[in-house]
């Protein structure tokens, strides 16, 4: 029996279930059924990812549960999926976030729910594919697939008057960002043919593991790294390529904004592709990474301070936070990479959770502008309390999952780039300042408007989402080893790969 269970291609199933769900949901007879189908598929996905997590052995090196099939044999492009310690935890957390988004959208979406929930499930499939892909072309396929869902989610269900502009801006940014990624992957494939002395197309390789082992001349490596950095920087987003995020967070629907703020796919791309595939160039250009990181930390924090709207404020603060992740990556030591992975995971539950709560608030008040808020705590004590928890977790207060991650990141940065580390500390302090200031203005004080006084507190399903995410934050905060143990072996390998290529 165990053999039979193990022979089930569970990773492919985790992608296929979502694809099938997303396409079949169109057939649902009425709007009520649509929601239930979406919920069922999302729960099923969570179960699948938890099974994957249980089957995963954190002590083993390399990729596990790998599944391969020929896709385009003449070009050596394969369908290939697998997980390692870096990607494994993203799966269940992403499943949780999508589940939360689906529950949160339950009553919010009234027009064309079939398309809406279908797109959400297709988006989740693409995101899972991004984490699981072990072939650069397959990764690129899933990477671009996210665009279609986001485009329609923003343009059709956006809450701002400029939603169409926001959707086009986002899509164009991402399409332009996709060009350097594609070029980098093609250059790597051609380089593999050069190194092995084989002809094209027989010598092309898009296989991640093969590419890791292929030698890369310094010149090509530099080009590849810069292309990958540019492509991922747009998505992350890194300052100065960030301008789409505040726009989308204001104009897009809460669901799309939550997913964009929560899922830092660009940071994942940097960790998984940009640095390991061009390790020598990455280490030579560490100063560039550090500069981008520090600029992002400070700019994001200062800009967040200047905002008068909760959603924009969260967007800018996420730009600041992700800068710290990049700084951790650029330190190229074990604390840095462990912290970076941990913090990227944190974004899913902390930033995602904070944005969902903001959405709940928006649903009640019709605005997230400070001017129309104030005194929320009176009528909505639970919402206020949870918001506080997500806020301090974002600041990295001990007891929350933000603390170990931020500690590791700052520690690694101070060790390797002391000046930048100090600048990051300043950024963290500013973060505390603006969060507390905003929190006081928006949530505490006297209620100014009747809407707020009469608003209901969190409903059951909203409470469920907030509590579940809060629980994850506290567990990982008090017992960070459950994350660090899983990511340790893969992180050590990541560092070892850099060391072999050190300039």
């Amino acid at each position, binding site marked *: 029996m165990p053999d039979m269970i193990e022979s089930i291609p569970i990773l492919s199933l985790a992608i296929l279930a979502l694809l099938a769900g997303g396409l079949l949901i169109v057939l649902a007879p009425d709007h009520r059924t649509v929601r239930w189908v979406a919920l069922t598929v999302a729960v099923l996905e969570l179960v699948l990812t938890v099974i994957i997590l249980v089957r995963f052995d954190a002590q083993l090196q390399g990729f596990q549960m790998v599944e391969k099939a020929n896709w*385009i044999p003449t070009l050596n492009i394969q369908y290939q999926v697998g997980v390692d310690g870096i990607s494994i935890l993203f799966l269940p957390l992403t499943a949780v976030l999508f589940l939360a988004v689906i529950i949160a959208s339950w009553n919010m979406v009234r027009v064309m729910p079939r398309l809406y929930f279908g797109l959400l499930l297709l988006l989740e499939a693409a995101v899972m594919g991004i984490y699981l892909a072990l072939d650069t072309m397959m990764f690129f*396929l899933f990477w671009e697939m996210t665009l279609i869902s986001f485009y329609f989610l923003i343009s059709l269900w956006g809450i701002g008057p400029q939603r169409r502009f926001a959707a086009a801006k986002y899509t164009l940014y991402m*399409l332009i960002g996709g060009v350097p990624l594609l070029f980098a992957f*093609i250059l790597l494939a051609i380089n593999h043919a050069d190194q092995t002395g084989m002809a094209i197309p027989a010598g092309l390789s898009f296989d991640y593991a093969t590419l890791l082992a292929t030698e890369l001349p310094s010149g090509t490596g530099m080009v590849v790294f810069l292309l990958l950095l540019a492509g991922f920087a747009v998505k992350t987003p890194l300052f100065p390529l960030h301008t789409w995020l505040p726009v989308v967070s204001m104009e897009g629907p809460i669901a799309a904004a939550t997913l964009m703020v929560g899922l830092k796919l660009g940071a994942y791309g940097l960790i998984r592709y940009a640095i390991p595939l061009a390790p020598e160039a990455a280490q030579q250009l560490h100063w560039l990474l550090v500069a981008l990181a520090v600029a992002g930390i400070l700019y994001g924090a200062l800009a967040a301070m200047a905002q008068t709207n909760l959603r924009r404020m969260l967007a800018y603060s996420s730009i600041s936070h992700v800068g710290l992740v990049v700084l951790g990556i650029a330190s190229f030591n074990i604390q840095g990479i462990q912290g970076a992975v941990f913090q990227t995971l944190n974004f899913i539950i902390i930033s995602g959770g904070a944005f969902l709560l903001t959405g709940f608030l928006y649903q009640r008040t019709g605005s997230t502008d400070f001017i129309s808020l104030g005194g929320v705590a009176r009528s909505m004590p639970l919402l206020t309390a949870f918001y506080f928890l997500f806020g301090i977790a974002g600041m990295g207060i001990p007891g929350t999952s933000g603390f170990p991650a931020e500690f590791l990141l700052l520690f690694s940065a101070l060790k390797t780039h002391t000046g930048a580390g100090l600048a990051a500390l300043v950024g963290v302090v500013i973060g505390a300042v603006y969060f507390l200031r905003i929190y006081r203005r928006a949530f505490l004080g006297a209620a100014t408007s009747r809407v707020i006084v009469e608003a209901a507190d969190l409903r059951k399903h909203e409470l469920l989402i907030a509590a579940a995410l809060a629980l994850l934050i506290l567990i990982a905060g008090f017992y960070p080893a459950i994350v660090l143990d899983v990511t340790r072996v893969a992180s050590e390998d990541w560092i070892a790969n850099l060391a072999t290529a050190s300039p």
Partner: protein
Amino acid sequence: MLFTELNWTLNSPYPVLITLQLLPLAGALLMLALKDSLRLKQVGLLVAGVEMLLVIDMYRRYNHTTATMQFAERLDLFGPFAYHAAVDGISIVFMLLTALMCLLVAIYGIIRGLEPTSRFLSVLLGVEASLMAMFSTMNLMWFIVLSTAQLGLIGYMLWRWALSPEKDFALTRFYQFMGIGILLLLAGTVALGWNAAHITGQWSFDVFVLSQVPMLVGFQSVVFFLLFYGFTIRTPFFPLHGWLPLIAEHGNIAVAPALFIGIKIGVYALLRFVFPLVPDAIIQWHNYVVGFAVVGIFYAALLAMVQSDLRRLIAFAILSHTGIIVMGLFSLHHLAFQGAVLLSVTFGLAAATLSLMTGMIFRRTRTTRLDKLGGLFDHIPLIGITFFIAGLSIIGMPGTPGFDAVHLVLEASIVRFGGLVTIAAALGNVLAAGFLLWAFQRAFLGSTPEGATSANIEPARPSELLIAGLIVAVLLSTGFHITPLMDLIEMPLESISQLYPGGDAGHD
């Protein structure tokens, strides 16, 4: 390059090619005869459907492990004008597309109510017969004659079912351009035949013979330019595209463009009749052609951006992308040849889809001016999504067949021309993404403009959904599983690539 062939008796119990050509021709005549019969539509659809099945049957019987031409049929008629038909994987790819497109157009024409139905179906099946004949003939003169007949039919289609008051002017311009193209082709063909007569003592237009006749490089160049411009005028290729925007704006919206622009005969003809015959001239001139192609990509993309009419915008989008196809062909690299063939099919299907969807929009709004459109998505979401997916195929979004094709072309062009040209071409592509997205947004998602009639827009009919669904299914399934198509064209293109050494190994 040495052409070889297998007689039809070896693969098939019946002569496939002649059946494929005569069935639609018979159908066309039958349509004229049946005129008022009630069964007219069903018979028309039946003929188009059976043709599709026959092509699929041929595809199944085709042996793709060899480059040899198959299903060959020969009949000696008048010396150099002998009937000689045979196909390889490249022809089959185009024939599959032709059969699919004609079936879709037949369904579309019937639901759209193009009157008189008998005449419409007759012209359509006539075009299908001519296309099938062009894709199967091995005789260049036959090809040119068929091409002329077909242009007559297409021109009639463009004009007869158009609503613009300026359609006569557009038709005249169309025939002027196409006439010049045919004259160039005739000159090139006669030159080839004369050269064969000069050397072997016998006139011939058969590509099997012509490919064996030696030619001086200077003479090759003359023939190359005559044939190249003759074929690319209709593709269309910058800077000989003057007819396209006019026809797009004033001609018939959906039906004729789907057949004429959707099926890229020019690309097929270059691969079948030009690349094997004048390799030295092509090697000499390919950089020049690529230069024009890159300029064309940008020129058309920029012009597309300033269009105020959806039809003209699509026309420029097509022009821009033909640049990428030509760039692929003249990279003279095996991967790029594959990419170019796949691109022709993808862009063809996608462009036809855009035209058909535009036709469906026009049926409801009576205009395609972008400032008069808006808010269509609420009424016809599936037509909108199909439009969007076709647009994505043109951009080369992963998951659509366009991606695999563009990817092949870019890969080869990095090897051939280095990063700069390639990045330029890719940026042109993103530019295209920009304006298609903009048009989509304007027409489908933008707010309904003042005085527009979109409030009472009729929802999509089941038959329209059938067309849209079929297209989406074909695009997405080939997008995720392109291997069968690549297998089909691998060997035939291999034998062409061998004429252009350095194309598969020389990247240093």
